[in-house]
């Protein structure tokens, strides 16, 4: 979701001249308050990431790059080189990228159809979407946990319809075991990358719809009608008219959701194999969990932040370039 700023709409004139002084003081107070709440937390992360660790979850201000070194090269470098944390970052990027792409890919046709509905139909769908969107990650994980659980979820369903036996008869079952989606006797989705990505996509799918909604609802129907009168089939209209005009929103939404998913925590702890745990989980462990090393947690947060910033910045550059082209 983005903050739209209204460019100065008030015409120059008499109405602005009075009461400017108290307004300015008020503005400055607001900036300070918001600065404390919205900016200072990030400064703390930055300061602590170069701070000094005190045993037992404490930290002191200081300047050392130990924590970044540990992240990038391993705690014992230069004797040994460790890529454990880079690997965690890698899983963060991978899960977030796949999850965001799937969500947007499925949200795009849905949103397109949604904007073709009547205003009333759209309103009903929007209520449902917003309700799903606002639902806490813990509840969504709870739902998928049941849906994917061995006893009452999808594996049991596959067993019941005979799919498991069919696969075994055909000798394909071993393949599912090889990619980690089955135990020796039945299908098993917890824990797996598939379950993680599935839950992540589900998590941001309503966001994707809401992000694509403005662009698609502003799509001029006469454009598509014009293309149709010139002999374009629906698929051609989609490829030549709809897609090019929403290219940027599609790209932008994917990027935003990707950044959002970089911080997913509950989904990963529940559905991902411990060997595939992401940076978010590691940050939690350092700050509040088992390992208790606040400066290292802060350093990992800074790296996650920088990663997000790099992607957002690169995305901005790319879309600007695409805009000009």
């Amino acid at each position, binding site marked *: 979701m983005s903050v739209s700023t209204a460019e100065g709409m008030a*015409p*120059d*004139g*008499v*109405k602005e001249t009075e009461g400017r002084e108290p307004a300015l003081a008020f503005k400055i107070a607001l900036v300070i308050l918001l600065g404390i709440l919205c900016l200072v937390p990030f400064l703390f992360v930055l300061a602590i990431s170069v701070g000094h660790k005190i045993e037992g979850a404490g930290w002191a201000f200081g300047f050392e790059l130990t924590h970044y070194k540990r992240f990038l090269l391993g705690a014992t470098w230069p004797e040994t080189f460790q890529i454990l944390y880079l690997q965690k970052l890698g899983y963060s990027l991978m899960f977030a990228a796949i999850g965001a792409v799937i969500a947007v890919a499925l949200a795009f046709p849905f949103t397109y159809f949604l904007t073709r509905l009547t205003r009333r139909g759209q309103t009903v769908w929007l209520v449902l979407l917003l309700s799903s969107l606002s639902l806490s990650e813990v509840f969504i994980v709870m739902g998928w946990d049941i849906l994917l659980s061995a006893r009452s979820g999808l594996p049991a369903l596959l067993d019941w319809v005979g799919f498991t036996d069919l696969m075994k008869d055909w000798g394909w079952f071993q393949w599912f075991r090889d990619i980690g989606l089955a135990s020796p006797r039945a299908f098993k989705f917890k824990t797996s990358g598939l379950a993680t990505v599935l839950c992540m996509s589900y998590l941001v799918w309503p966001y994707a719809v809401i992000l694509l909604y403005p662009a698609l609802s502003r799509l001029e129907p006469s454009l598509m009608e014009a293309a149709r009168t010139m002999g374009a089939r629906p698929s051609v209209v989609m490829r030549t008219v709809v897609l090019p005009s929403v290219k940027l929103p599609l790209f932008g939404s994917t990027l935003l959701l990707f950044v959002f998913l970089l911080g997913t925590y509950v989904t990963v702890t529940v559905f991902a194999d411990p060997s595939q745990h992401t940076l978010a989980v590691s940050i939690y462990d350092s700050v509040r969990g088992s390992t208790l090393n606040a400066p290292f947690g802060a350093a990992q947060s800074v790296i996650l932040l920088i990663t997000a910033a790099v992607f957002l910045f690169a995305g901005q550059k790319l879309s600007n370039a695409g805009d000009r082209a």
Partner: protein
Amino acid sequence: MADLVLKSIRKDFGSFRAVDKVDLTFPHGKLTALLGPSGCGKTTLLRMIAGLEAPSWGQILLGDEDITDRPAYERKFGMVFQSFALFPHLTVAENIAYSLAIEGVDKRKRRARADELLDLVQMGGYGDRRIGELSGGQRQRVAIARALAQEPSVFLLDEPMSALDAKLREDMQVELRLLQQRVGITTIVVTHDQREAMTMADQIVVMSKGYTEQVGTPKEIYSKPGNSFVASFIGKANFLSGEATDGKYRVGEYLFEAPKARGFTAGSPVTLAVRPENAVINDTCACLGEEWAKTPPEERAKNVLPAEVTFVRDVGSTRDIYVKTPVGDLIVEYGAGESLPTLTIGEKVSLRLPPDELHVFPRDAEAAE
């Protein structure tokens, strides 16, 4: 008798000069129309009068009082906006009584005043309606009533008819004029429609590119346009480019007399203008013969042109005859009752531009456009 007076008003928006060198007097109790094409600065001028914009230079006086620096909410000139700007969250009566409500007038008096004004604009009984339930014409009446509720010293209307359809517009122009005369309030109407201006106004100010081009009664503006812009903007006009000779005007090899025009020094470039309804067509003319062509211009009949009919349009109330002459294409208009020979396309006729109806303007670079 407090007239509203503008003294050398100028308005700049950044580097763009929207209004410049405007000196005007709006006589007390009269209706003045600010008339001009879009972008001519007429709305900016109106907003400066209302106090919604501050002039970059100049003075606004109401009687002897300088009100230039007085904010809009102290001037309280009632204004009707192009979009009517009725508040959707208030009822019709609440809209009308808005100015009274913020003054703290008590509720019963407010309602009484609103009902009185609704009667004035023939909308009695509509007080409790929502704005969304009203038609365009009703909204306009409510907007007018609302602007009059505060008994303003000046009543301003910004393109008040533009949101109405053509038929309703004509009726409302007459109605608004009658209302204004009844209330007797100094009124300024901004419009781009010359018919609207001529229907309603005591005085018309023609504006173009931020300047006032001409100020006068509707009749003066129409029959004695001050320049070619006014002649073309108010009603229709045919233009011919020529030059002044000794007391006459030459266009191509034809000579014209225009006794009403002011003197021009010989050789100065001029524009001749004639209204379509003032040109006369004749199908029996000496000028059609071979002999006439050989005569030197000085000896020919003045104000006559040979012409060829290219198109005839009969719209019932008038007939427009399009003709081609050696010095340019012209349109001639005949009313339904006027006698006119039957014309066929391609027919050779003569065209007379009566000296008393011929307007002559200096031709400068701008007017030549």
